[in-house]
């Protein structure tokens, strides 16, 4: 079977170029990643964790990290598995072989979404313009992740550091979410890169 090489273009490549530099809330596109949705019965969970090499958190809305790989628990029996900069084919092959005898589902969603980061002392404040959750550290600590809304778009929001959030958003909504947050942060003084 012939194989056509198709270059993946990040959906945020265009809009993220040449924006202002705002120290209070910087926006940056994160590298492409292999992404999978895994759902299954409890007996399959340790098998998936072993094959992926990252512990699957049992607590809903928490994520665990190991190197460039992450496992986000986004529902009671549902995880988003993410491997930054890796080839989805290889990981999918390994996981599906290990899980062959288990009752579960594994879907490659690498091309569904792109991820960007908002960081800085006012990132919580900027996100709150579009996100209805209480983003205080008490209610949304480091290590938490969840599906939620930013404006009208569904996203997976996670807090990787006290002042850093990552936003995983479907490609067709990504420029909308980026644009919304970019507009909000323009109330802070900025140094334009292009001037």
């Amino acid at each position, binding site marked *: 079977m012939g194989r056509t090489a198709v270059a993946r273009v990040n959906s945020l490549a265009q809009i993220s170029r040449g924006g202002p530099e705002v120290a209070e809330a910087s926006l940056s596109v994160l590298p492409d990643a292999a992404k999978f949705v895994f759902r299954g019965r409890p007996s399959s969970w340790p098998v998936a964790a072993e094959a992926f090499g990252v512990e699957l958190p049992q607590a*809903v*809305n928490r994520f665990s990290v190991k190197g460039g790989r992450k496992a986000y628990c*986004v*529902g*009671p029996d*549902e995880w988003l598995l993410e491997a930054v900069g890796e080839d989805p084919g290889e990981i999918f092959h390994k996981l599906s072989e290990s899980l062959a005898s288990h009752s579960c589902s594994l879907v490659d969603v690498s091309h569904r979404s792109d991820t960007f980061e908002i960081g800085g002392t006012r990132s919580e404040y900027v996100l709150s313009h579009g996100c*209805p*959750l209480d983003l205080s550290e008490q209610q949304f600590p480091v290590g938490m992740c*969840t*599906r*939620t*809304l930013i404006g009208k778009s*569904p996203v997976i929001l996670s807090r990787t550091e006290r002042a850093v959030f990552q936003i995983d958003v479907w490609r067709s909504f990504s420029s909308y979410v980026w644009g919304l947050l970019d507009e909000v942060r323009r109330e802070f003084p900025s140094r334009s890169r292009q001037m």
Partner: protein
Amino acid sequence: MLLIKCPFCGPRPEIEFAYGGQAHIERPKDPMSLDDEAWAEYLYIRNNTRGVHSERWRHINGCARFFNVRRDTISDEILVTYKVGEAPDAVPEKDRPTKGGAVR
């Protein structure tokens, strides 16, 4: 904005949820044995309760799971939320919304 207590995620803003209709409607075990009237009853006929109503909700923009809610249709007060397969009366007092609907 109303806060609804998802049994998996805890109190969350109402815009993350979708309404799923009346709860505890069981699909007939043998649909072929039903006449048209009984099948129509199963498909279309619902209560229009004035007072406490059991209904399904889905935390679509959260954990995405369906769960059940007992809600007073007069005051819009949510009395209890519980997982599918659980009995509402088994939910401990401390896990129920306070009087007036506030979520603990």
